[in-house]
C-alpha cells in the first residue's frame, strides 16, 4: 500500500513582518554558509577571512562606500521602474534594453549638444531624452500586449538585444578615438552633461534623483488613482472593465512610466557614473533588478534594502576575487547562490509546511 503524504503544505493567510524578516535572514545566513563552503573548496581559505574581505570590499574605505552607494542607487532606480509594471502583472523583462536606449539618448545629447547649450539645460535635455527613449522602448510591447495580447515576457526580452545592437550601431559613429570601437569618456575636458557634485559629493545627484523616485513611486503605487488602477488591472482585467477602467490605456501608460524610469536609470549611469556608453552599460542590472522588484513586493523602501544587500555582496565578491586571485566572475556565482536562497525563502513566507497528521 502506498504511503500517505508525509508533509502537508498550506497557504498562509497572514504572516507578520517580523516572521517574514526572520525567514529572509535565515535564508541569507544559509546562503552565506553555502558560499563559504564553495569558497573554501575552491581556495581553501578561512571563510571568516573571506567575509571580512567582503565587508572591506563593500564598505572598507570612503571611496568603496561611495561606489557601493552609487551602484545601489542605479539598481534601485531600475527596480523602481519595474515596480509598476510588475504590480500590473506585466512581465517587463526588457529593463536591460530600456536602460540602453535611455543611456544612448543621453549620450547622444551629450555628444551632439555638449557645446551648444548651457550645462544645466543640457542636463535637462539629457534627462528628458533618456526618459523618452526608455518610454518608447517600454511602450512598444505594451501596445501589442494591450491590443493583441502578445506575450510580453518574450517580446520585452527580444527587445533587449535589438537595443543592444542599436547601441553598437551608435558606437560606430561615436567611437573615440577612431577605430577603438568604444566611445571613451564623453566630454572629458568640458565635463558637459556630467552630473555635478552635490553637497560636495560626486554621486550626490544620483542619490537625490533616485531617492526622490523612491518616495514618489511609493506614493504613486499606494496612494494615487493610477496606482489603484494598476492594482486592479493586475488582479483581473474583468474587474478592471467592471470598474470602468480603460485597461489598454492603463497597460500602455504604466509601461510608458516603467520604461521612462528605466531610461532615466540609463541617464544616471551615463551622466552620473560612467560618462560613456557601451553595450555593457546595463551590465545585467536590468535582470538583477527584476529579482529585486519581485522580492520587495512593490515596496520601494524594501527595494532600497534589497538593492543595497545585493550590491554589497557584489562589491564584496569583487574584493575576494582580487584579494585571493580569483576570477572576478566569482561575484556572479556568489550572487547567484544568494539569490537562489532568497527567492526560495519566498516559499516559506507564503506557505506553512507541517507534518501530516494521522
Amino acid at each position, binding site marked *: *500500500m*502506498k504511503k*500517505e*503524504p508525509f508533509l502537508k503544505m*498550506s497557504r498562509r*493567510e497572514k504572516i507578520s513582518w517580523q516572521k517574514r524578516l526572520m525567514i529572509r535572514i535565515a535564508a541569507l545566513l544559509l546562503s552565506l554558509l553555502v558560499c563559504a563552503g564553495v569558497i573554501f573548496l575552491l581556495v581553501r581559505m578561512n571563510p571568516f577571512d573571506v567575509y571580512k574581505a567582503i565587508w572591506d570590499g563593500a564598505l572598507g574605505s570612503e571611496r568603496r562606500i561611495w561606489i557601493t552607494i552609487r551602484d545601489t542607487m542605479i539598481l534601485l532606480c531600475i527596480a523602481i521602474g519595474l515596480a509598476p509594471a510588475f504590480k500590473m502583472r506585466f512581465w517587463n523583462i526588457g529593463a536591460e534594453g530600456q536602460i540602453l536606449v535611455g543611456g544612448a539618448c543621453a549620450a547622444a545629447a551629450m555628444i551632439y549638444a555638449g557645446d551648444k547649450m548651457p550645462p544645466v539645460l543640457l542636463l535637462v535635455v539629457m534627462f528628458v531624452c533618456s526618459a523618452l527613449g526608455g518610454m518608447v522602448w517600454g511602450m512598444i510591447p505594451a501596445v501589442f500586449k494591450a491590443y493583441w495580447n502578445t506575450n510580453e515576457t518574450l517580446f520585452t526580452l527580444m527587445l533587449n538585444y535589438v537595443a543592444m545592437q542599436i547601441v553598437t550601431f551608435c558606437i560606430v559613429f561615436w567611437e573615440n578615438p577612431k577605430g577603438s570601437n568604444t566611445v571613451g569618456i564623453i566630454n572629458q575636458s568640458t565635463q558637459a552633461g556630467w552630473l555635478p557634485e552635490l553637497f560636495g559629493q560626486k554621486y550626490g545627484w544620483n542619490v537625490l534623483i533616485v531617492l526622490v523616485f523612491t518616495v514618489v513611486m511609493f*506614493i504613486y503605487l499606494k*496612494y*494615487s*488613482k*493610477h*496606482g*489603484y*488602477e494598476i*492594482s*486592479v488591472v493586475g*488582479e*483581473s482585467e*474583468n*474587474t478592471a*472593465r*467592471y*470598474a*470602468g477602467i*480603460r485597461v489598454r490605456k492603463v497597460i500602455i501608460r504604466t509601461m510608458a512610466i516603467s520604461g521612462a524610469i528605466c531610461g532615466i536609470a540609463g541617464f544616471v549611469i551615463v551622466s552620473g557614473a560612467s560618462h560613456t556608453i557601451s553595450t555593457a552599460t546595463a551590465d545585467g542590472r536590468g535582470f538583477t533588478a527584476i529579482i529585486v522588484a519581485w522580492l520587495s513586493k512593490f515596496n520601494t523602501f524594501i527595494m532600497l534594502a534589497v538593492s543595497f544587500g545585493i550590491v554589497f555582496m557584489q562589491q564584496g565578491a569583487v574584493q575576494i576575487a582580487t584579494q585571493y586571485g580569483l576570477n572576478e566572475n566569482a561575484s556572479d556565482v556568489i550572487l547567484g547562490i544568494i539569490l537562489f536562497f532568497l527567492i526560495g525563502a519566498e516559499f516559506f513566507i507564503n506557505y506553512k509546511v507541517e507534518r501530516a*497528521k494521522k
Partner: protein
Amino acid sequence: MGENYALELKQITKRFGSVLANDHVDLTLKKSEILAILGENGSGKTTLMNMIYGIYYPDEGHILVDGKEVSIRSPKDSHHLGIGMVHQHFKLVDVLTAAENIILGLPGKTMLNMKKVTAEIQALVNKYGFDIDLSQKIYEMSVSQKQTVEIVKMLYRGARILILDEPTAVLTPQEADRLFDILRNMRDDGCSIIIITHKLQEVLALSDRVAILRKGRYIDTVETAKANVQSLSEMMVGAKVDLDIDRPEPVSPQKRLEIKGLTCRDKEGIKTLDDVDLVVNSGEILGIAGISGSGQKELLEAVAGLQAAESGTILFTDADGNQKDLAKMDSVEIQELGVSLAFVPEDRIGMGLVGDMDMTDNMMLRSYHNGKGGLLDRRGPRQLATTIKDQLEIMTPSISSPVRQMSGGNVQKVLVGREIAQNPKILMVAYPTRGIDINSSHTIYKLLNEQKKHGVAVICVIEDLDVLLALCDRIAVLCGGKISGVVNGRSATKEGIGLLMTKHEKGGEQ
C-alpha cells in the same frame, strides 16, 4: 458487511483552512446502481467527490472500494480502482483531439498508433450510441460534445464507478434525456454511477437511491421510489425554512429601461443574445430565469456596457422622461452620462471585487476616480466600509483584511452593500444568493426589496425558481439567447417557467 458495495465512505472529513467542507460523512454505493447526491450549493458534494477521485486527500476517515480499504492520493490511484469522474468544468486539453484527450495519461506502448487507438475508442462510442468525431479538436466542440468526450474517456479507462458533477447544468433538455438513457445503459451494463445535482426532478427521474448532504454533513440515504419532491427538498434544506420573502406591491411603476432587438455575439461569433426585447420598470423586481448559459450574463453585461451590442437599442428613461441609448456605450461612458447603474456580477471575486484588497479599497472600486487630483481619497470609502460592515453584520476581523479571506456570504454582502450605496436607478444582480447561507440570503432579499420600494428598477438573475416566484414581480425567461416569455411573478407556476426555459423561440409578455 452483508451488502455488496462498490464504494463505501466512512467518517470522511476535510477542512480548507478554517472552513469545514465535509464533516464526518458516510456514504455507500451499491454495484449497478445510480446514486444521486443531493445538496444545495456549498453543501460539500463536489469536495466529497474530489476526495474519492484523489484530487483532495481527506483529513480524516476511510474509503473502501469493493470492501477493501484504499488510500487514494491522486487521480491515478482512483483510475486503478476503476473510478472515473466527469467534472463540472471539463478537464480537457483544448488543442488536442478527442481521441488524444481520451488516452491521456494511460499506460501502454510508448509509440502511439493513433489509428488503432481511435478504432478501439470508436467501438466503445458505437456501443453506447455516443455522437462524437474522435479526430476533432476540443476547442472546435460544443459543450455537450465535450461532456461526451469526458464520459467516453472514463469508460475507455475501464471505469466501473462513474461520478458526474452536475452534468445537466450545461445541457438542453433533449441532450439531458439522451445522457440519462446512456447512463441507464451503463448501469445495466454493471457500472455504478454517482450523479451530483441539486435538481430534484432529475433525481427522481434517474436515480435508484438518493444521498442527501447539507452544509458538509451527511443527512440520509433513501430509496428514490419512496421519495418525493417534498420529502427530498425538506432533507436538503433541513428543518422547513419558510421562504417567507416579502413582496410589496410596486408603487407607480414607470418605464425605466426599454431593450429592443438586442443582439450580441461572443468571441467565436456565436449569438449569445438574439433579438431580445424587454421592458424594465422602476419600483419592481424583474427576475431572469433560464438554464445556465442562456444569455443571462450577457444580458446584464450588455446593459452595464461591458458587452458590445451588435445591434439593438437599450433606451434608458430618467425620472423626467429624457431618453438615452446605452447600447452603443461602454461602462465608462454610461457612468459619465450620469446614469447610475449598479451591477452585482456573478463572479464576485474576479469581477465585482478585488480579492487581495481590503473592504475600504473595494468600496472605491467604482468611484475611485471621483474627486479632484491624482491621489485617492480613502476617507469616504473607509466610512462606507464601516457603515456596511455594521449594518449588514459582515463577519470580518477588520475592514482592512483582504476580502478573499471572507466567507461567500460576507463577500456578497460587501458587494451588494457597495452597489446599493451608489443610490442607483437600476440595480442588476446575478445569482445573488448562490453559495450563501440562508440568513445572508434573506438579508440580500430584504435589501433588494428596499431598493424596489425606493423606486429602483431591479433586475435579478436567480436559478432557484421558488425564490424567483416568491420575490419577483415579473419574470423573463431566456432560452438560447432569446426571450421565450415574460410572466407575472404572482400568477406564474414553476411548470410554466420550466416549459419556457426549453422553448427555443421568441415569446412576449404573457
